[in-house]
């Protein structure tokens, strides 16, 4: 089944081959995702971060670098508590972003 985005397996990032369509789909649903500045406030405040490595910053970067597996794993630890939304200086709607991303993953039926 073709969901319009594909996997890029490599430890180096090759932007020529990285499929950005998942990121683009997410940005269509939650445009504030584009304005992340990678400050890390979200991860620092996240209760799940210390025990699971969950980080909105890494999630956003990961889907732009083809690291879909790692992202999925992180997402599974989120409790949707919303602390990250509260601290984000760019007003990224992180909770909605996580939810939308989970939906996109759900739609992909394990293709990612």
């Amino acid at each position, binding site marked *: 089944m073709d969901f319009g985005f594909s996997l890029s397996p490599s430890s180096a*990032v*090759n932007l*020529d081959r990285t499929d950005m369509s998942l990121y683009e789909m997410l940005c269509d649903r939650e445009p504030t995702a584009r304005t992340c500045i*990678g400050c890390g406030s979200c991860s620092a405040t996240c209760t799940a971060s210390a025990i699971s490595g969950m980080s909105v910053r890494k999630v956003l970067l990961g889907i732009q*670098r083809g*690291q879909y597996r790692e992202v999925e794993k992180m997402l599974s630890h989120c409790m949707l508590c919303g602390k990250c939304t509260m601290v984000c200086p760019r007003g990224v709607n992180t909770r909605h972003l996580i939810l939308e991303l989970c939906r996109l993953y759900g739609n992909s039926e394990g293709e990612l």
Partner: protein
Amino acid sequence: MTGNVAVVGGGIAGLETAVRLKALGWNPIIIEKSSSLGGHVAEWNCLFPDLAPADKLVKELVDAADGIEIHTDTEIASIFYTRKSYSIVLSDGSRFMCDSLVLATGFSLFQAEKKEEYGYGIYDHVITNRDLELWFNTGSDERVPSDPKAIGFVHCVGSRDIKAGNTQCSKVCCITAIKQAIELKEKFPKAEIYCFYMDLRLFGRKYEDFYIRAQRDMGIHFIRGRVSEVSETIDGRVFVKAEDTLSGKPLRVSLDLLVLMAGIVCNRENTTLAESISVQTDEDGFFRSRDNITHITESDRPGVFFAGTCTGPKTIPETLAEARSAAISVDAYLKSLK
């Protein structure tokens, strides 16, 4: 006393200083080594942060300078200090006495070919920020492809780089890169645009908003990592290596155009000029101000003043404000001689 003030440099700093001095009742004489006025700004197309046309600004300043004695294609040939005034001979043969001097000799753009690893002058599609402004103005540059799919900007070229001989931040190139990236995205909406930065230094009013616009509305990608090396692919594209430091992974991308953000470095002629009138330059080659907080526009020598980027990287509003400040200082100095 003569009431004459020699203004060395006919860029925006020199023009603005001269116009203000004239309004204060003195007689400025502009000495410009090139054949036209306006300095670097005359080469730019649209200005951050509002995309105002550069030619309009230069024209306004040149028009305002109407009636002021201006020597273009001219430099100072010799200068002597005698009885509280300067005797100046110009390269065009003219000579005059003046009571004060304003140095407004501006900056030089870092020569990008010195950073050989970026391939400027070697690869077909590597240009500088200046080349891009000229292309915006003329539309002709064979290095700019007609339908680019991917474009990159390299920040800090020749700035913040001890090996390039410049430790300073050039201040204007982060915001210029964002401006130029937005302009290119508007021209080539399908192109992916990447900015490779070490830090983003967007200090001025509206600059951060410009950055947010680049991210949110234009989809420009910002990658934190300094481009380490550039090569050319077999099909003539530009291949870039950097580290994506936020993910800690090496990153590669091939591009159709690479724009190098060449920095603001000192005008090397400052050193000879400084020696001829006994003022100082700092280790970075920019003129040394009497005080870096309270007296930026004054030298250690009474009667010699500075305006604009000859004392370090500055934006246009900062340059103009300094030019006005220098004019006020000259005015006070000349009044004290009376």
